[in-house]
């Protein structure tokens, strides 16, 4: 019974790790890639470490495993935030289909589908490009 739980947990965790790698490889842009790697990677490692603590089932190992999980869950968002801030301030090029609509975001009625088909790339990195290499 224990073995079945451990097997399910570690295979689920390995699957999430593989999905994180796949997302890092296939997604189009730094900020979107960070989305895949941080969330799916942390969840995969958490599941695997949880499976290990179920397998050993001693208080020392469970303490270590909870320490690893707590540390990862605390540091992964901080690290991702720092990378995203550095990339944004250096003026990274966004994906060509990224849209920023400030007024719509403020009123909370952000359209699910972009309505302005005439200008395909509004606001994508035009003023970011000038600022970062001066």
């Amino acid at each position, binding site marked *: 019974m224990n073995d079945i739980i451990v097997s399910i947990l570690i295979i689920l965790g390995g*699957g999430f790790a593989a999905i994180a*790698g796949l997302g890092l490889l296939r997604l189009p*842009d730094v900020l979107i*890639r960070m989305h895949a790697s941080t969330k799916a990677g942390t969840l995969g490692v958490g599941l695997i470490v949880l499976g290990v603590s179920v397998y050993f089932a001693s208080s020392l190992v469970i303490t270590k495993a909870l320490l690893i999980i707590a540390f990862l869950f605390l540091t992964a968002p901080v690290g991702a935030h720092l*990378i995203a801030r*550095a990339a944004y301030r250096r003026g990274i090029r966004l994906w060509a289909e990224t849209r920023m609509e400030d007024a719509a975001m403020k009123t909370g009625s952000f359209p699910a589908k972009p309505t302005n088909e005439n200008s395909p790339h509004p606001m994508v990195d035009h003023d970011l490009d000038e600022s970062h290499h001066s």
Partner: protein
Amino acid sequence: MEFATNIALGLTAFGLVAGCIRMFKGPTAADRIVALDLVTILLVAVSSLLALRLDNSAYLDLGLALALVGFLATVGFARYLEISTQVPLDDEDAALQQGDTELKVPSREKL
């Protein structure tokens, strides 16, 4: 049980290889930092799976130390990228710093 551990090790190894490919060819420096972050996190997973496979709980300590060092490396590289103006962001940025503005318009469609 051992079969499940092998499957999980294989899946994690796939994630590691994908992270290494992204670190090798990532177009910007920020891509490489993200890939480094994922690779260290997945190495924690590998050391935990080794603890299962070799039936030795001491490998969990290795995972804890790796998580600490990996976080410090990520923070350090991110701060360095943010502060330094010497590191070119990618090939196009390096060309721009050398005054070659012709590259700018055509390669914007690259992503």
